[in-house]
């Protein structure tokens, strides 16, 4: 399976993503500089975390207009698999490949901590290795992770089962207004969403930082295993 990681000026979690992808695929991921205009033959495109363009203007807004994003859009239109994490998620909403937007965290401070996520659907390459309702731990690290969308969009996301992950407490219960459960104040405690063809996933937390016992656990690994399984099959 061929994977590619897009690198923008200011991207800083591409090395973490390489570690995660190398655990599930034989071929090392290709790093594609944002100035390029073609992806080449690739099965999965990853937009990693970081501060593309220093988060100036608005997180992800400038990266959404980088030369490579034309090719990423075409790849999406052809049904390609795309994973956007943290800044990658912000870029995917700025390009409208995913709905909604990410605002500053509810209490206006950068947050770096572990959180618990509940898997809300099994029906996607990114979540197929879990069962609906499974709860796993993963780190998060962002200043702008408060997911928001208009009421109609939210309703549609929920109705179509396109909420991939929700912030919950360790026992799996969601409390939107409790910062212990929903650390950034996201609407409906949404941590990750899917595109309507379910092949594009964006999420704020970092499952790629929990794929090795030395990192403190392998709770994030099923996401990457699932994508490989879905694509290779």
């Amino acid at each position, binding site marked *: 399976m061929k994977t590619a990681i897009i690198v923008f000026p200011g991207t800083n979690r591409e090395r973490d993503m390489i570690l995660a992808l190398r655990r599930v695929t034989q071929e090392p991921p290709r790093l594609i500089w944002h100035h390029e205009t073609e992806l080449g033959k690739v099965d999965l495109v990853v937009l990693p975390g970081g*501060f593309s363009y*220093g988060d100036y203007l608005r997180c992800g807004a400038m990266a959404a207009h980088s030369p490579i994003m034309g090719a990423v859009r075409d790849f999406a239109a052809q049904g390609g698999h795309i994973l956007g994490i943290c800044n990658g998620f912000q870029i995917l909403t700025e390009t409208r490949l995913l709905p909604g937007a990410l605002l500053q965290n509810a209490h206006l401070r*950068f947050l*770096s901590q572990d959180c618990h996520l509940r898997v809300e659907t099994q029906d996607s390459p990114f979540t197929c290795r879990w069962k609906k309702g499974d709860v796993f731990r993963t*780190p998060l690290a962002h200043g702008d992770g408060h997911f928001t969308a208009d009421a109609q969009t939210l309703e549609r996301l929920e109705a179509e089962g396109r909420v991939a992950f929700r912030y919950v407490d360790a026992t799996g219960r969601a409390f939107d207004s409790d910062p212990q459960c929903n650390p950034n104040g996201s609407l409906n405690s949404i941590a990750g969403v899917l595109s309507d063809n379910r092949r594009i996933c964006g999420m704020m937390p970092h499952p*790629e*930082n929990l794929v090795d016992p*030395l*990192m403190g656990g392998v709770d994030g690994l099923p996401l990457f295993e699932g994508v490989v399984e879905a694509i290779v099959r």
Partner: protein
Amino acid sequence: MTVTESLARELGLTAEEYGRVLSIMGRTPSLTELGIFSAMWSEHCSYKSSRKWLRQLPTTAPWVVHGPGENAGVVDIGHGYVAIFKIESHNHPSFIEPYQGAATGVGGILRDIFAMGARPIANLNALRFGAPENPMTRRIIDGVVRGIGGYGNCVGVPTVGGEINFHQAYDTNPLVNAMTVGLARKDKVFLSAAVGVGNPVVYVGSRTGRDGIHGATMSSAEFDKEALSKRPTVQVGDPFIEKLLIEACLELMATDAILSIQDMGAAGLTSSAVEMASKGGVGITLDLDAVPQRETGMSAYEMMLSESQERMLMVLRPDRTDIARQIFEKWELDCAIIGHLTETGHLIVKHRGVVEADIPLTPLVDQAPVYDRPFVPQPPAAPLGKVYAPLSLDDMLLRLLESPDLCSRAWVWNQYDSTVGGQTVFRPGMADAAVVRVEETSIGLALTTDCTPRYCQANARVGAAQAVAETWRNITATGARPLAITDNLNFGNPEKPEVMGQIVGAIEGMAEACKALDFPVVSGNVSLYNETRHADGSTRAILPTPVIGGLGLLEDIHCAVGLGLHEGEDLVLIGATQGVLGQSLWLREILGQEEGDPPCIDWHAERRNGDFVRKSIQSGDITACHDISDGGILVAVAEMIMASGVGCELESPDSGIRPEAFWFGEDQSRYLVCTENGAYLCEQAAQADVPARIIGKTGGHALIFPSGVTISITRLKSAHMSFFPALMAG
């Protein structure tokens, strides 16, 4: 502007120093020349008050590749790798403008590390704030924490550790010391000495503006009521540009283009050009018209002294300048040839066709003033009389856990990205030292910063030695072998004999500890004049704060242990306990006294206990370890419980020592360890002549005292977690 002695004094030179400038130059210097002398001879750049004493610090060991004198210290960690690290202060700017002061402190130390060819892999810090009751403290904490996070998070270097103390002596002079650790191949370390007459001198990074002019001079004087009007001397950072600069420099370093490189830190272009040329024994000519500029109409003086951030100076192979240009274009950074190396031995600065400065480098550097300042030995601390516990053990423990110096720092470290890079094994709060893996190997680095200023205030010699020992212990407690330290000496005005006495004592104490523990100093920074002058003319110095940043090596990272207790094991106390309460946190927080001698260290016991603990961790006999420091045994037990959520039932000590002295005394060279077989470990310890005894059994959801009194983990945590959120709320 005509240059006169009074102008020289305004720029921080003494009359005598100005006389020396005149004799070196043989004429009245130009304004630019005077500015260069003033910056290079500032305390910040010349270490003129401390240099004489710093010489006694041990700086070598078989594993030390480069000691002090380079941008940072370099130690061999095996597998073809070196670790490169240094700590540096940004105290004065962080009071004037907390966010930018702290942010650019992080940016500056990062550049020292990647200038040597290392990818930065971890940031740490050591912070000192004023009394929590002072309303200014809150504003400063908020800015400093946001600044450290804002910079470190954006450049993608994890902030993995640090320490914080509060004391009113830091009310108007907070301390922000930032440390960076980087990783390089041993055969790809870059140095700053300029190489090759005729070779091009290349400027890369951000454009030069008027920010930070004379920052180095500002940091070399005490504050007065005008301090806050000094904002223009504070630099403004851009971590996004720094990230690009890191990647561009590392990409260029993978080629053979760079001959020498140095970051433009304090005193900007002046210090980088002077240091590179003088170390290389060559002259250097700069053409300021070629310097990328952010503002128009800048003078030579302004450009030479600007401390604009995110800039590097390098000497390139003449046939490789195109490669450099291509790489910097890719990263959208400025890159310009601004001069060349010469045989003249002079620094020559040209601007708009005029020679603005022409200074012989050798005397500029070699004749920099070195002072043997008068000092008086520190008076002994007020003796500690008889003290009695006014509360029950459990109440006193809870009081300590919620006190500013012992409470949870989670509120702070939760704002720092500690996992970016994917190599962090122990994040803040998980172990006595942060542990970071060396990618693609089984080795790891244990990293920590330490200092106990209240000990230093009572006895700087003992306190500074203790800071080194505490660093050594924190590294040991993860199972790592301590390799080397970097030091950040923060003191008041060295022109006062009593402050100078603290400096002399602290350096002597450090030297003693470093020698006893085979723990050399490989880099460091001195920050003096941390004093505030009040309207009535009186001044107040900070507590002497010699911060130690330590680095240790884990040969097998899988053996590293954290501090959280494991269920169903024995808790063993390693080391001898006499119940020393002098200068303890118990004394200060429970009785409100700051008295007595700080605890002394027996170096033989220190090494023996530490070596035993390390060996037992490496052989798998110890599952968790925590050194005993602030707050003594009982606080250490509580911290181990809270780290993993596993409780502990304590045994009666039967030590003949009063309970408060046994449980809260701060005797040195001690550890608490968790082990499956306490009897076996005690037997091993006895063979090694190490005092050890079982003091508890782990398990359950509470801390149970020998008396049967119980505190639930939830209660411990709520006391521990309350301070920061309450202080910073609303």
